[in-house]
Every structure is written in C-alpha cells, then in structure tokens.
C-alpha cells in the first residue's frame, strides 16, 4: 500500500490533530554524511583496485591495467605483453576483487549479526561462526563429505558449518527467551575452540602430506591463489544478500532496539530472525570457503561506519559494504608486500589490527559485557 494512502486514511479517522506537510522536512545530518561518504568511497575503491593490481614484483602501469581489462572483456588488441596480461588478468585482478568481495561481505555480516544479537561485540570470527564454516570446509576437503556435490561441496560444507555454529551459540546464549551478551561471547569463544580442535583432529588424522598446509590456510585466512571462479559464488551471494538486507533495513533498525519494540512496530521477529540467520550463515559459508577465517573485519567496519553515519541500517549497510571492501583490499596489499616475496596470511594482519579495537570497544560499551 502506498504511504500517502495510509496517511490519508488514518488522518481521516484520527482524533489526533496531525496535519502533514505543514512542517518542512528537517535537515538530516546523518543522511547527508552518508551520501558524501558513498560519493568518496566508490571512486576510492576503483582507484584502490587499480593501485592494488599495479603493486607487485612485476611492474605494470596503471593505465595498462585497465587497457588489459578492457581488452580481455571486449577482445580488443593492445600494447601489452602476454606475461603482463596473464599477471593482471589471471593473478592479480581476481585476487584484488576477491579481497573486495570478502571484505564487503564480512562487514555486512558483522552489521547483521550485531543487529540480530543486539551485541556490539558480535562478529562471525568471535562468535565461532567462522570456525564452524572452516570445519565444514575442512570436512569436505579431507573426509570427502558431500563429494557428490562436485565444485559446490566446499561451499555447502562451509555454509552448514556456519549455520550449525550460529544455532549452537545462539541457543547457548538464550536464557528464558533473552539473549545474554556475555554468555554469547563466551559461548562463541568456546564453540570456536571446539570447532578448531575438531578441525585439527581431522587434519592430524589425515596421512596426505599436503593436508596440514591446506588446513592452515583456512585457520589463518588468505587470498593467495585466487581464481576467477572463486569469485562467482561469494559475489553472487553478496549482491543478493545486500538487496535482501536493504529491503529489511527498517526491520533491522527496530530489531536492534529490542524484540518487543520490533513486535509492536509490526515485525514478525521470529520469522525475521530465522531468515537473517540463514542469510548470514550462507554469506559466511560462501566467503569462508574461498578465503578461510579472516577475523575482526565484521567487528571493526560497522563500528567505524556507525560513528560517522549513525545506526540507521539503510546507511550502515551500504557504507559498511564499501568500507569493508576498501579495508581488505589494502590489508591484502600489505599482506603480500610487507615481507615480499614471502606472504603473510591476511587473517594475521586483520587480527593484529582488530584485537586492540575489540578491547577498546569492550571498554567503551559499558553494560554490554
């Protein structure tokens, strides 16, 4: 139903004297800030993608990067060597884009998890969701569960692992229908250790020599060896996920205040929470299947964004998505250049930055813990 219709109808019945349109729409500081921020972040991401592709052991000019991309997409010929084309198109470009998609996805997951749990410290890594997904992925890799699903087996395993962890942590944090924030973090940490130990056990029981190395990749999180086909599922999930979540952004605003408030504003809280749980588990699983467990992005990005644009999810969601992409693109650049030619797993750097941030946040949010 159209909104003006609703206003007109209730206005006619209402003994409350509300005459719309007499007052001017007030200036909205947070909305203006968020528009400016998006206008700055979007070109900044394009620039960062270019720079991130340029930076590396083999030198490639920024303009050449886009010429190669243009050439690859349209089939046009250009003034570049085959080696350059392969480095840009097959190695660096998919990796940089994957960093962007993974960073964006983790930031969005963080936003939703914090709203659903009403806990400012919620993050897929801290609550054990990432470890659950990693366990799912490793089970597929080493034990061969879901082998019948072919190339999707890894993603399905990670998704189910994420969902299992989410449901487990959620039900452990519930007491008489209320979510206890402290218990949720503790349950998350415990679940995280439990999943990690099972993952380690599976790894050590495996005789093949490569197993430990491959599993270590999931435990630490890394983007090396990214291929174009790794991008498809997470990117698709991110696009569909953000469209669904933007549609639910008013409901998320109400949910973050409280279940009862959301109910009185006409939201079916149980249905919404179930759906958000599936959406976040799916997004987490698909991302972790390609990147491993990268921590604290989902914790840091939403908070920094909220400090600037407020809590309204219609702004927090898109701005966090862009901020997460920008952040992880650059963290990955640092990961591969800091000790070049050796690479550091991205997850080590995000944890190094994220853990102090977590402690700062813990001190700041009185009452949450």
């Amino acid at each position, binding site marked *: 139903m159209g909104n003006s219709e609703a206003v007109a109808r209730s206005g006619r019945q*209402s003994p409350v004297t509300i005459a719309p*349109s007499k007052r001017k*729409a007030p200036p909205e500081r947070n909305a203006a800030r968020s528009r400016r921020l998006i206008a700055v972040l979007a070109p900044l991401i394009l620039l960062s993608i270019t720079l991130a592709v340029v930076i590396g052991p083999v030198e490639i000019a920024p303009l050449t990067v886009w010429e190669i991309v243009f050439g690859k997409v349209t089939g046009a010929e250009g003034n570049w060597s085959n080696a350059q084309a392969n480095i840009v198109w097959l190695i660096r470009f998919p990796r940089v884009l994957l960093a962007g998609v993974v960073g964006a996805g983790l930031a969005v997951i963080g936003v939703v998890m914090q709203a659903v749990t*009403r806990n*400012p410290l919620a993050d897929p890594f801290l609550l054990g969701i990432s470890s659950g997904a990693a366990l799912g992925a490793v089970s597929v890799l080493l034990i061969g569960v879901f082998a019948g699903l072919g190339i999707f087996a890894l993603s399905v395993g990670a998704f189910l692992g994420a969902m299992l962890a989410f449901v487990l942590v959620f039900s452990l944090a519930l007491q008489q229908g209320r979510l206890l924030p402290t218990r949720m973090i503790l349950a998350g940490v415990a679940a995280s250790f439990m999943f990690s130990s099972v993952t380690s056990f599976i790894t050590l029981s495996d005789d093949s020599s490569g197993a430990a190395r491959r599993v270590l990749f999931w435990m630490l999180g890394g983007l090396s060896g990214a291929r174009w086909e790794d991008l498809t599922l997470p990117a698709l999930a991110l696009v569909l996920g953000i469209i669904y979540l933007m549609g639910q952004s008013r409901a998320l605003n109400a949910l973050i205040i409280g279940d*009862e408030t959301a*109910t009185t504003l*006409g939201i079916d809280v149980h249905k919404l929470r179930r759906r958000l749980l599936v959406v976040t588990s799916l997004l987490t699983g698909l991302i972790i299947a390609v990147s491993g467990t990268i921590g604290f992005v989902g914790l840091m990005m939403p908070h920094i964004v909220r400090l600037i644009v*407020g809590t309204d999810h219609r702004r927090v969601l898109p701005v966090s998505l862009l901020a997460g992409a920008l952040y992880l693109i650059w963290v990955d650049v640092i990961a591969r250049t800091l000790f070049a030619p050796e690479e550091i797993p991205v997850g080590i750097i995000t944890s190094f930055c994220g853990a102090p941030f977590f402690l700062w946040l813990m001190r700041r949010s009185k*009452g949450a813990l």
Partner: protein
Amino acid sequence: MTLHVHELGWSVDARRIIDDIRLSVETGAFVGLLGPNGSGKSTLLRCIYRSLKPDAGTISLDGADLLAMPPRDAARRMAVVLQESPVQFDFTVQEMVLMGRTPHKSAFDPDTNDDWAIVADALAQVNMLDFRERSYGTLSGGEKQRVLIARALAQQSQFLVLDEPTNHLDIRYQLEILDIVSELRVSTLAALHDLNLATIYCDRLYVLSEGRVVASGAPDDVVTADLIHEVYGVRADVATDPATGRTHIMYFPASAWASA
C-alpha cells in the same frame, strides 16, 4: 477504536500468571490498569501487544481478532509505549521517532515529506522538536519517555498501550506525560503505578491482583480504602478534596498505624 479482552489467560510452567481477564476500552477512553508488582499487569499488556501468546481467551480490536492479525496490520491499529530500556546502539531522536512509520512501509519505500512532517508534528506534540538531532542515548529518562510517545504518535494508530509510562520519573514529568497522553483522546490502555494519578487521569480503572481482575469501574468507585487494603495490604484514607472534587489517597505506613 474499541478493545475487548475476553477470558484471557496465560501460564508458564503450569502456573497461571493471568487468568480469566475480561476488560474493555471504549473509543477515546483512557483506561488505567492498576495492581501491585507481580499482579500480572505487564503480562496482560504483553498479551495485548502480542509479545506473548495467550493460551486462553480472545482479544478483539474493533471487532477484528487481534491475535490472528498479521503483525503489520496490528501495528497500524495499535501503538505501544514500552518501559524505556538501555540501547547499545545510538539513534538520533528523529530517527527513533521515524521508526514509528515502519508499519506503513514496504521493503524499499523511501521516507516521504509526509513522513518527516508526521515525525516533526509528533515531536512538537511532546515538546521535543528542538531535540530532534540529539542522540537518544544522551537524554534524561523523562525526555526518552517523551520520544517513545512521539514514536507511538508517528505510528498514527487509533489505540495506544502504555506500560507504566511514568516509571522512574519525577512528579513533574509524570504529570506532563499523562497530560500529553490524555489530551490525545485516542483509546488508551495504560498500566499505572500511582493510584492518585490514576484517579485524576483515567476514565475507568481495572485492578489486578494475583492475575485476576478484582475490581473495575469509574475511579471513584474503584479506589476505596477497603480495596487498597485488600489488594496492596496497606492502610489508606480516601478522601474528596472539597475545592476540586478530586479523590485523594493518603497512605499510613504500618509503623504509624501501630503507634496510633
């Protein structure tokens, strides 16, 4: 808009928390719900605003079955002011009030000029227009409560439910909040703590004790020394102020009673 509650019951672990509740709110009436702590006031209100699912009885709003209504339809008809609780995530005052428009919105509907006008009017009605860019978390208890009332107003529903709207407030704010609500003349059901205030503002009272309605009617008929003693276990004198014709309740502490 009228509300009829019929033989309503809710239990937890086979323990009846409220039982056989019958209650009506006529169009435009301000109805008060009284009773000591633990008498079931909040439970009854939770059933009415559908946070709890009653296991017996019916609730109808203008003849329609409230319990079977889709959540959005219910929220367009009934707005609720809950007791203020701490929020970890901060909204501005006007963002908080804008949330009242939620039940009128589909998935991707933007905020229209009408929405902002409704928000501004609602804030003006509770005297909070100058605070609209302020952060909700920095407000005092009375200011927060007024913002929550503004949110309910922005919902533009014909029925208002309030759960102890004046709890923890100074007397000045208690009077202010009840003034605002009673001047709206929308059908209102409010759980109240203060018997004096209830007799001043309400058109009709229901008194709950141990989950049952033990008295109902016009305030002067309901609030008597006998009832106060029976329900609250407190001695009191109920008198009429000759100047205003209003009911006044004076309480006698047990110690004073003993020494008298």
